[in-house]
């Protein structure tokens, strides 16, 4: 573990992985509770168009990705809230549009090809720059801040939208807040695991946590712990075995889920025996 920290690129990568592992499950818990587990995927696909737009216009792809992802997230939310289209169809529409737009725009960019997109689709954490780390840190703080400040309101909203309205909460604003926060998370996680696997970090640790917990808060905290373990652990292991870190991170997370599934069943059984002597 020590020799790993001798490399600057590895230090940067570990900081990025740590922040992403912490932020993604935090907002992910609300998204899963809201039955929008695929929201992150939808936004991720849209963000690809943003990345390509960055190459086309010569701006930083991360910045254009943020802008386009936020717009996409707002669009998903509006379609979901207003339209007759159900959430999953709205997401599907954006999946296709996002990928097609990305591929089209990158082919127009000077010197751009589908290969350029690969590092964004599958992540390239070992190439993060100091500036990347700064942006990731800023966005991660923003995401965690939103969860800390609006957490109670988001809990009510995600539990039952009608009750939230009857409690006088700004339902539309909070829904947009979730969507925008998810978009920011997607962009920061993009460098770590890639756009195609982004959602895994928002969903899998939560699914793992809920096998073992009884409460919402404990699920979220446990999910953040699992997320962090998966990103940092996966990244560190990929340093020793030559495999893409993004894929390894997601597989570590999934492995944790399978373990938790077995463990959770065991815990619940012993609990129910406890309460029915």
């Amino acid at each position, binding site marked *: 573990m020590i020799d790993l920290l001798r490399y600057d690129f590895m230090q940067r990568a570990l900081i990025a992985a740590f922040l992403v592992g912490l932020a993604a499950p935090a907002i992910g*818990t609300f998204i*899963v*509770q*809201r*039955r*929008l*587990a695929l929201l992150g995927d939808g936004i991720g696909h849209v963000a690809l168009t943003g990345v390509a737009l960055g190459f086309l216009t010569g701006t930083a792809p991360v910045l254009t990705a943020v802008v386009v992802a936020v717009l996409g997230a707002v669009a998903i939310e509006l379609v979901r809230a207003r339209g007759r289209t159900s959430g999953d169809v709205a997401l599907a529409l954006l999946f296709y549009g996002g990928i097609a737009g990305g591929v089209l725009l990158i082919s127009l960019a000077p010197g751009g090809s589908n290969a350029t997109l690969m590092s964004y689709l599958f992540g390239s954490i070992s190439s993060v720059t100091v500036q990347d780390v700064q942006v990731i840190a800023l966005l991660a703080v923003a995401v965690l801040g939103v969860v800390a*400040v*609006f957490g*109670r*309101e988001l*809990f*009510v909203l*995600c*539990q*039952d939208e*009608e*009750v939230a*309205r*009857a*409690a*006088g*909460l700004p339902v539309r604003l909070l829904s947009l807040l979730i969507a925008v926060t998810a978009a920011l998370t997607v962009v920061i996680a993009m460098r770590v695991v890639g756009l195609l696997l982004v959602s895994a970090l928002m969903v899998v640790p*939560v*699914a793992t946590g*809920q096998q073992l*917990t*009884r*409460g*919402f*808060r404990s*699920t979220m905290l446990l999910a953040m712990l699992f997320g962090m373990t998966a990103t940092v652990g996966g990244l560190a292991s990929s340093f020793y075995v030559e495999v893409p870190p993004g894929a390894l991170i997601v597989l570590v997370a999934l492995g944790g889920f399978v373990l938790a599934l077995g463990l959770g069943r065991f815990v619940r059984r012993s609990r129910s025996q406890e309460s029915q002597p």
Partner: protein
Amino acid sequence: MSGGQVSLDRRPVLRGIDLTVRSGEVVAVLGANGSGKSTLVRALLGLAPLSGGSTLLYGKPPARFREWWRIGYVPQRLSVGGGVPATIREVVASGRISRQSRFRPTSAADAAATARALEAVGLADRAGDPVQALSGGQQQRVLIARALAGEPDTFVMDEPTAGVDAASQQLLADTLSGLVEQGRTVVLVAHELGPLEPLVTRAVVLRDGCVCHDGPPPKAVGAHALPGHDHVHPHAEERPAGPLDWRPTS
């Protein structure tokens, strides 16, 4: 609410409802399945959009109403979300939301109100259990506790007795009578009143989206409006005769 009209899919569900709930009343909204009871209370709160008429909450239209802590809404059932567990205490504590300020942490008053609400519905010893593991009647108690925790002036309950065991119904009746003594206002939707009957001061009976009785509880108006009596299929008589029925057959 005056002249309240609600349409779902352009089909009118409520037609020209005039209803004013006065402070301290215990109003039961009765009627057969599909008569628009739930829609009525949701429209009263501005949760179901009106296609005509208007509704006022404490003198203000819902969009400009700010004192939401005065209202405790109890939905028909607990929605358990996408599988993320939540403890009974967490759900009940969320009833304080309209009394809390965004940047201030949960206060001692919040915790005390949550504890009182849990005590009132007899779930204090199970506060750490996930709500997903509860029976329908117990989940209903959690919903009521959530409204109690907010300490509102007016309770609006959508079918608090539907699918609830006798013990939970009795507990609800006891809780409500405590609230009535404190002068709170209660509007509840019910199919059958059961043990709530002695508490109700006013009954509004809906039929086909119109108020067909508004006054003292049904006991006084005879067997016809008694809950449990009106079990005919809601659309049985209003179904227009189709051309095939209408044309004489040979």
